[in-house]
Every structure is written in structure tokens, then in C-alpha cells.
């Protein structure tokens, strides 16, 4: 703990007391913010975990079916086929703010008009691959939303924790100590003043008495 280097005056005392109140209010607010953020974070952790395993499963399946499709048709043909496919994705991304942290909400809509190619010279695996990749995309949309929210929230939490700690462990104790020190010094000065006044009064009284004696003696 360190005291602030300020001259111990009444003005400074008042100022520091105000600042201390401000710091305490700030601390309470940030503490609340931290709690809210952590609750939010805990809420999406489970979803993020579930989505990640889901994505892995789907992607694996998708790559397997793709491999089969490549084996059956050849890469070149598949590339040509891919060119004919017109699935339109429309992602609309809106924002939700939690304690000033922008979190994305991803909404994906699909527009597709199958069939894209002749059924005659393609086989099951192509359809399977298309289906699987489409499913994967759905999950990716959701995962993008959760994962990025998660990263942003986590970052904000760590920032808030740092601020809360700085206030709680450094700023507030410092202010308290400085206020206490100035208070002591002011009290001390006041006592000194008081004593001085008393002494002067006493002396004046003594002087008055001796003066009056002198006067009476003269008369």
C-alpha cells in the first residue's frame, strides 16, 4: 500500500473522500458486470462444446462421402458438378450486446432449387456429400456465433477482473490510507491550534491581572 503524495489540507481531504466514494461505486458496478459476464459465459460453454463435437462428426462424415464421390466420378467431373450447384446461403448477422460486448447472432437461410444435375450418370455418394456438407454448414453458422461470442466474452471477463482487482486491491486501499493520514494530520493541527489558543488566552489573562494590579498599585 502506498500513500498518495498530496499535501494534507482540508481541500485535498474532501477531494480524496469524493474520489474514494467514486472508486467504491465503480468497484461495485464492475463487480456486478463481472458476475453477469461470467453467468453469460457459463451459459454458452455447453453449447460451444456440443457444437464442436458435432462439427467434427459431420465434417468427418462429409469428407468420407466426398472421398467416395471423388473415387466414383473423378475430381474433374466433381468440380464441374460443383459449378452447376446453386445453393444460396443468406447469412444475416445481427448483434446483441451483453454489457457492451458485441455478440453476433448468425441466422442462415438457404435457397435451393434441386435438381442440379442429371440423375443418370451420378451416384449416391455425390448426393450424400452434398447433403453432408450442407449439414456441416448449418453447424458452422451456429458454431461461428457461439465460439466468437465465447472468445469475446472471455476477453471482456479477463479485462473486468483486472479492473476489479486494481480497484479492490490497490486504488481503494490507497485512497483509504491517504484519507486516514490527512485526517490524522488535520486533527493534529487542530489540537495544536487549540492548545495554542488556550496558551495565548492564559497569558493574556495573566497579563491582564498583572496590569490591573499595577494600575491599582499606582493609584
Amino acid at each position, binding site marked *: 500500500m502506498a500513500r498518495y503524495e498530496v499535501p494534507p489540507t482540508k481541500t485535498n481531504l474532501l477531494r480524496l473522500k469524493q474520489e474514494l466514494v467514486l472508486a467504491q461505486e465503480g468497484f461495485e458496478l464492475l463487480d456486478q458486470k463481472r458476475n453477469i459476464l*461470467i453467468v453469460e*459465459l457459463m451459459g454458452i*460453454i455447453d453449447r*460451444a*462444446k456440443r457444437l*464442436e463435437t458435432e*462439427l*467434427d462428426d459431420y*465434417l*468427418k462424415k*462429409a*469428407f468420407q462421402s*466426398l472421398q467416395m464421390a*471423388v473415387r466414383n466420378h473423378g*475430381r474433374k467431373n*466433381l*468440380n464441374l*458438378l*460443383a*459449378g452447376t*450447384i*446453386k*445453393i*444460396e*446461403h*443468406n*447469412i*444475416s*448477422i445481427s*448483434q446483441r450486446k451483453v454489457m457492451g460486448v*458485441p455478440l*453476433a447472432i*448468425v441466422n442462415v437461410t438457404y435457397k*435451393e432449387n434441386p435438381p442440379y444435375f442429371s440423375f443418370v450418370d451420378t451416384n449416391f455418394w*455425390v448426393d450424400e*456429400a*452434398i447433403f453432408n*456438407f*450442407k449439414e*456441416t*454448414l448449418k453447424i*458452422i*453458422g451456429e*458454431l*461461428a*456465433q457461439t*465460439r*466468437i461470442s*465465447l*472468445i*469475446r466474452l*472471455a*476477453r471482456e*471477463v*479477463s479485462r473486468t*477482473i483486472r479492473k476489479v482487482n486494481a480497484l479492490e486491491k490497490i486504488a481503494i486501499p490507497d485512497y483509504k490510507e491517504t484519507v486516514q493520514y490527512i485526517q490524522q494530520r488535520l486533527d493534529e493541527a487542530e489540537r495544536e491550534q487549540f492548545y495554542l489558543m488556550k496558551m495565548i488566552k492564559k497569558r493574556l489573562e495573566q497579563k491582564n491581572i498583572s496590569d490591573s494590579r499595577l494600575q491599582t498599585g499606582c493609584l
Partner: protein
Amino acid sequence: MQYVVIGDEETVLGFSLAGVEGKIARTEEQTLEFLKKYISTPRVGVIIITEKLASPHARFIDDYTYKETLPLIIKIPDRSGSREQRISVEEVIRKSVGIKI
């Protein structure tokens, strides 16, 4: 807005079957070039990138994720399914909150 994908041949081909535009990147420089290009394209909503290609630019991507809202960058495992380098959800939480789950 749309999805775009940056990946190896297999990934790009796969996603193109689902109607996603993609770029095949073979080197680090190419990856960065495509990333920057897609980031500055307004119609791009989500960039899908394979973990293998993303790992040399992890720093760039992370910074980007924190600062900007759009587009979102999402890393996926590629065909080999390698996911050792992926920072798990728990890791992110442990670093920020200091709680182990």
C-alpha cells in the same frame, strides 16, 4: 451475406458442392492474401478456414476476432482431422476467468 472458404483442395471442393465459394491456398502468403481479400469484401459474413492454414496466422486471426465484428472467422479441422493445435473452449475460459471446468 455469404460463407466463403479458404482451404486445401479437398475442403474447397467439398464446400463448393454445398454452394460455397472457395479459394485453394497452398502457401502461407496465399492464405494471408485471401484472408485479407475476404475480410475487405462486404458480402462475406463468415470465413471458413482450415486449422492447418490458419495456424501460421493465428495471431492475425485472433486480433481480428477481438477487434472487428464482421466477418466472423471460423476454424475447422481438415480431412486429416487434426485438432491438436486448436485451443479448446476450456483453455479459453481457464485463461480468462481462472476457473477450471
